[in-house]
């Protein structure tokens, strides 16, 4: 490695960058022939840092930076490289060694270049790069993923007017990237403040993506081995939880923004959230069929009870905050959506938990009829009374008018015997302790969607 370095030192910046790529390509290709999983050593990464991210290695050497022009050239070179390297494994390892955060000062450069590379690949439709980026998003701590998402959103939804169309078209070439992108965006815009509401055109794009194909949100989940657990601080396997949070908190968050800014409620955004909510529920339904097919229904949840806790708490705070503001309508809507999401996810097997836990969790929320129904659960089927439909709910309150006959309804009896699940412990899950630890180590077939 050091002899390569010496030869590179004499080159000008751009050709050195080009050459380091070339050398590493050869290096990793040969490594991959020997071992299925190449060991990424320190040497190559340092080379990359020095010659591509322009981090000075010695203290004495002066920093030379690419000009914006050279950087563009470098991006083109990288794009072309990934396009032309047809071995997926090599691409992945190179991408990973280029852009995996190392926790050093080169990370800023790394993220900046990654943002630009991804952005450019979106524009010129370089699928391999996007696929690599999708994997990267899966492998990388969420803080970095959020930065990449931010870069893309800035480029396509903020700076260049109308260019969101370009991004929108990506769905046709790399849905996997889109799925991860949505997850990252949902993590980025968590609606906790006014700045963190998603831009309208972004929202519109995401809704149109998911509405067209609710499967989109499940791609990563279904392509991941079930053994894999999401470590702390990484993105979820699915944007579902994030998007549910959007749908639930949106009415109140926008109301809060309106209160601060004093403007009109953006009606079209609210419409989009409704649409998104529907797509979510449909996505859950699709999940159920998949789980049932795999005989995993009731054994593998999509999200955990733990993830619900902050959502419910946040909702509670928002309600408290907006209570004096005559925001009953919005609160009602938010609670309804939460109740629906809870009900459907429990019914479809995405959420595995006991209603008792839910009851304690939702106790502090304002009163909502639908929520009451959901947390009290359906009346247990009495074999002695065959006249009662299994899905019968006791008339505690007037049933909500909105969903008297949900299409998902027939599916409900399938999961009524919740207490039978050994998966759900009587005590609430300890935070950080994955719920599905009970799962047997059976292989979840790796099943690419396409």
């Amino acid at each position, binding site marked *: 490695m050091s002899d390569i370095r010496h030869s590179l030192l004499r080159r000008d910046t751009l050709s050195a960058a080009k050459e380091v790529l070339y050398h590493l390509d050869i290096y990793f290709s040969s490594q991959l022939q020997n071992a299925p999983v190449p060991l990424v050593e320190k040497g190559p990464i340092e080379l990359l840092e020095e010659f591509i991210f322009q981090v000075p290695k010695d203290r004495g050497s002066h920093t030379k930076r690419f000009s914006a022009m050279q950087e563009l050239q470098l991006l*083109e070179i990288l794009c072309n490289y990934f396009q032309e390297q047809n071995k997926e494994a090599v691409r992945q390892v190179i991408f990973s060694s280029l852009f995996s955060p190392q926790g050093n000062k080169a990370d800023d450069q790394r993220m900046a270049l990654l943002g630009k590379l991804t*952005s450019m690949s979106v524009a010129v439709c370089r699928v391999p790069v996007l696929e690599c980026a999708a994997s990267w998003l899966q492998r990388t701590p969420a803080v970095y993923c959020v930065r990449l998402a931010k870069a893309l959103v800035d480029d396509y939804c903020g*700076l*260049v007017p109308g*260019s969101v169309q370009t991004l929108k078209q990506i769905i046709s070439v790399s849905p996997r990237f889109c799925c991860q992108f949505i997850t990252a965006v949902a993590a980025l815009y968590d609606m906790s403040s006014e700045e963190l509401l998603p831009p309208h055109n972004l929202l519109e794009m995401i809704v149109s993506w998911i509405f067209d194909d609710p499967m989109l949100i499940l791609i990563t989940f279904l392509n991941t081995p079930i053994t894999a657990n999401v470590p702390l601080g990484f993105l979820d396997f699915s944007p579902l939880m994030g998007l549910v949070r959007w749908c639930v908190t949106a009415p109140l968050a926008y109301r809060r923004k309106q209160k601060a800014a004093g403007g009109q409620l953006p009606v079209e955004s609210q419409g989009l959230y409704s649409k998104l909510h529907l797509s979510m529920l449909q996505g859950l339904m699709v999940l159920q069929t998949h789980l049932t097919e795999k005989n995993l229904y009731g054994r593998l949840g999509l999200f955990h009870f733990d993830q619900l806790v902050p959502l419910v708490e946040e909702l509670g705070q928002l309600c408290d905050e907006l209570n004096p503001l005559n925001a009953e309508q919005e609160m009602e809507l938010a609670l309804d959506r939460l109740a629906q999401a809870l009900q459907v996810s429990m019914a479809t097997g995405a959420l595995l938990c006991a209603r008792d836990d839910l009851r304690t969790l939702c106790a502090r929320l304002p009163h909502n009829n639908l929520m009451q129904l959901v947390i009290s659960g359906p009346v247990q089927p009495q074999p002695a009374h065959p006249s009662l439909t299994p899905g019968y709910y006791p008339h505690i309150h007037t049933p909500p008018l909105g969903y008297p006959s949900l299409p998902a309804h027939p599916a409900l009896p399938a999961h009524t015997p919740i207490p039978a699940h050994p998966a759900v412990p009587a005590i609430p899950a300890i935070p950080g302790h994955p719920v599905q630890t009970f799962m047997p180590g059976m292989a979840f077939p790796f099943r690419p969607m396409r």
Partner: protein
Amino acid sequence: MLSSQPQPLPQLSPLELSLQIKSFLSGTDPQHGHKLSPRDHARCSLLLLQCLPPARHAVLEHLRTVFHDSVSSFLSERDSQDALPPSSSSQRRPPPPPSTQGLDEVTLEVQRVLEEFIKLNPRAWAPLISAWSIELMGQLSSKHAGRQGMPHSASLNELLQLWMSCGATRVLMDIYTHCLSTMIGSCPDACVDALLDTSVQHSPHFDWVVAHIGNSFPSTIISRVLSCGLKDFCAHSSPTDTADKRVPKLGSVVGILGHLSSRHGQSIRQEILRMFHESLRPGSKQQRATLPYLLQLAALSPSLLGTVCQDLVDSLKPATLSQLQQHCSTLPREELDNMLNLSVHLACQTSAGAPRLLRFLLDTAMPASVITTPGLAVHDSVREACDRIVRLLLLSLQKQVYGRPGSRGTSEVQPRAVPFLEAMRGHLPELCAEMLRLERKRHLWIHQLIGLLCIYSSPPCSSEALCILLTLAQSSEELGLAVQLHAVLSSSVQGLAQAAVTRSVAQIHAGALTDKCALQLLQNLALVVQCEEGSMGREVGMALSEYLSDFGQLLLHSEPGVCEAACILLCSCPLPTSIPPSQLHILIRSSSHFLFRSMHIRSSSGVSSASRLLLRLCRVSSAGRKAVLNQLVEGALHEGNAGLFGGNRPSSTGPRLGNDTASLLESNSHLGSAVDFSGSVWSVFHAGVIGAGLKPEENSKQLGEEECTENTQSLLSLLCHCCARKGEDGGQSTTLDPEAAKTLAVTLTENACPDVTNSELAWPPEDHARTTVQRDLLIYKCFCQNPLLFQLLHLIAQGRPALCYCSVLLRGLLAVLLAYWEASRHQDSVSSSWHLKASCELVSCMGEGQLLPPALTNMHEMFSLLAPFEVRLLLLSVWDFIQENGPFPQRFVFQSGRGIFTRDFSREGDPAKYMSIVHSVLHRNVDRLGLLSGRFQL
């Protein structure tokens, strides 16, 4: 054309797009392989900007080169035009060279695209584009600054004109202003920040941009520049940071405000004051930093300081001050000290507002008095703080003044200016006046300040201050301040007293002082000379001695007080070893004039001071003595002064004085009236001038007896002192110096009898007296009018042999008396009292002067008991004696034992033959005069 609707984006397929990227990067046409023209290249870059977001930095970088090229071509075209003969410059421009053709068009296109972006998403684009455009302008300005034919960066207007005539820079400027105006409502900080940063980098050449933008958005730029500066200041004000780091941005804040201050000074002032007052309210860290920030800002920019200082001082009301005090009390001590030092430094740098500032500081630092309105009184701690500031200010000024390299005249380096002192220089008189009010503490501070001011602007100022103090000081306490000032300054300023005196004299001469002031000044000077044995008295005295003649002129001042003061001053100031005769004479003349004037106005103090002065002058030299005597006698005999000594004062100098219509023609038609016949036979007739009727009776207003005596005594004693022999002063038994007495005699003679023909000392026979009738009459008249003459003669007689020189007078008077007594038909001589008295005086006088032997002299004792013809007989014998024994000085012999001249009559023949008439008269009236016979024994 800008449309309100967003333009449809050019939709490119990914393949087309990558081709565009290639062609943009390589600069060649991807299909044909030829090189892209700059215009096409630029178009390509714009396309990328619209389709490929991550390429925006590269595109902007490329556009930089486009603008650079455009500007270069513009400038070279301009240069080539300048090179052409001037006749062609008025013609249309030649078309630009083909290589750069269309660049202007491209720049306009760039502007359109960018402005479109800014309009659609100002929050994202405006900071980016504004930074880009402003930095590009900075680069362009710096790059071409050194170019030939470029206006100097100081001439902003020319530079602005040039750059705005260039399409590319105009476009950039438009883009930036567009950014700024878009963001002005929300948060222009990002745009202004870029402006500041660039201004730091490209400072002098970039100023035109700042000036232009500042003039377009004055209020925004001012407030934003200030707030950005403050933000930067806060960000760098952690204690670990050194001060020099934050200077650049502050520097550019100062630079920008400096540009704007000429036109928008008012806004700047308001804004800064607003910041100041806002910072006093309790608040955040940023507000706490405001005060140090503003101070720092002012420290960097004198013009800013000048702009703000005055209004700031005005706005510091007691309420504000206590607010400020509360605000400061929360600050850490170190910071407070820094601020204090900085404020003091600023105070030193203040120029325009300096007097106001000083007044404010002093007013605030003054201890509260009963007179102060309760509501307006400042808090004690505020006052203490102010007191401290004043003391620090003085200390700092002192350091600067004494620390200046040039203050001792050792170095040629231009000494550093201290604006505060510069500004206070003009207010020296007010300062002095204020100091003399002797308010406690305050006058000490002002005294110190004046001292510093004087040393600072050494030559003119110190003398001025001293001069003012000397003019204004009215009590010894106040005068003491002047003396103290001199003591402070004398070590640093050479010839201070000299200069002060020169200045005072000049002031007096210029009429710049009122009489009262002049009087005070003279008195003070005299006091200083008399009472200060220290250096000041001596120096002032020496200085004064150079201006004797100037003070001499003051003796003729219309205001008697001034004269007297000048006189006292002259008395007290030391005289130089040698006074030029002209000066001496001027002095003598004026002081004698003053003497008589004092007598006229009955000012005894004036008389005494004038006498002292004259005596002093008289001792200067023999010529001086001569002159003094001369003047005194002349003055005493002057017809205007005759009345002072009991003589007749002629009521009018001429017969026609009363007539309003004095016609030369008319007076010429009266024969003889206009001709001066004095000295000729025509003027013998004393009854009046022919044609004018009888002479009006002389109705002299006699002075009181006492005054006359007093005046006479004063004059005589003065004369006596003047004539005193050297070394014999003051004693009662003064012997007169013969030489002085001779002078007196000669002078007297000349004055009493201007006609010197036939005036030798020797006496002719009595009957020859007829030839000198006219002169004798003049002399007689003179004696009539001036009784003083007899006194003078007596005086002269004591200084033997001086009376000899008065022989003409004696002879003339005697001749007239002889004629009178001859013609007199009275029974006894007592009936004509004046003549009797005159005869007695004459004879006794001659006896005293040893012109007559004692036996002969004694005859005057019986004149009053005789008949007129007997008196005549006796007087005739006197004449005879003198005719025989002429009144010549050589007859006198010096007696070294007694130090006087005496005449030994025993050696001059037998006096007995002159005694026969005396004896016969005695015999004839022996019944009455028998008693006296013993007096006439030889």
